[in-house]
């Protein structure tokens, strides 16, 4: 069932009427129409291995089509969903995202956002479970600005109880500019032998 795992990991989609997504792939396995399914289950003999091969072929052809499109750089602008500082952001190159609270990187730092949950272009979407394979999509970003938020007044008062408190707070804000989002290597290709990584997760 390796094809199924593959299909679930990378749901790839082309023109809608020729949809080859996972759902479509699974549905095509149905041996009889939905109405008459209850009674005649295994009456028809099904060559499972042939079906599996078909599915595998479909998966491969989808990956190839994506790779071809990326090679010709016809995929257009990529978007990605990244996990950063406990929040998820949907980003595209040129975006500025705001990270609230204490965050160590300083102005001018070039960072790569590695927790990519989802990446997509005009004709395909790669869905991670929960994140895409490391090194498949490279998201580069620069820390642009570090400031404080506006002053937030924290005011509490209870009537007739002589209770009143007022505090002021400003939290650090960091602006991060997304420089580029790129497919670093072919989809479903072999991962390059990785050097011992410095990643924390």
């Amino acid at each position: 069932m390796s094809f199924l795992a593959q299909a679930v990991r990378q749901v790839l989609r082309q023109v809608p009427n020729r949809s080859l997504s996972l759902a479509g792939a699974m549905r095509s396995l149905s041996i009889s129409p939905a109405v008459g399914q209850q009674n005649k289950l295994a009456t028809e003999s099904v060559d499972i291995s042939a079906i599996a091969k078909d599915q595998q072929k479909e998966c491969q052809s989808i990956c190839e089509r994506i790779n071809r499109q990326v090679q010709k750089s016809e995929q257009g602008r990529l978007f990605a969903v990244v996990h950063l500082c406990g929040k998820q952001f949907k980003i595209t190159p040129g975006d500025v995202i705001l990270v609230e609270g204490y965050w160590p990187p300083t102005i001018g730092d070039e960072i790569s956002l590695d927790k990519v949950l989802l990446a997509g272009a005009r004709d395909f979407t790669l869905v991670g479970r929960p994140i895409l394979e490391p090194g498949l999509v490279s998201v580069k970003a620069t820390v642009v600005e570090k400031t404080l938020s506006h002053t937030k007044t924290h005011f509490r008062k209870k009537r007739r109880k002589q209770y009143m408190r007022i505090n002021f707070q400003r939290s650090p804000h960091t602006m991060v500019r997304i420089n580029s989002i790129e497919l670093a290597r072919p989809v479903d290709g072999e991962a390059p032998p990785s050097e011992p990584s410095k990643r924390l997760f």
Partner: protein
Amino acid sequence: MVFLNLPLLVRARGPDEFWRKRRIFKLAAHYRSRTRNVYSFAIRSVHRALAYATKGRKLKKLDMAQLWSTRVEAGCQQYGVGLETFKEGLARSDILLNKKVLSDLAIWEPRSFEALVKISRERAAVEGMPDIKRRSAFNQVYGLSNLKLD
């Protein structure tokens, strides 16, 4: 305590009255009618406004969460899947996108969202979740036990 002269009998009122009142009037500058000009009215409404602002910061987060669920629900109902089934199906497929991102996708990336709904619905059907009417092809051909997803 011994009061030696008359001015010390007066209760200490903190900073100078003018500046103390001015701070309040500055916050009340855009109010209407006497809440803008009369101190006793102004301070009442300024205190109330500040308390509301403090509470509102928490409520805003709750409101946004509600709005996102509404949007995601509307998005997946287009394809005849309920919100709970959709979320459960995604979670069981190890797709951990949050409500904010899902609502963004539903609005701006409808085709990606459609793919997510399909994954979720298929997973729900495979695992036989009650909301899904159509049974999965997998359950009938192979049986659930033969299904090895990772």
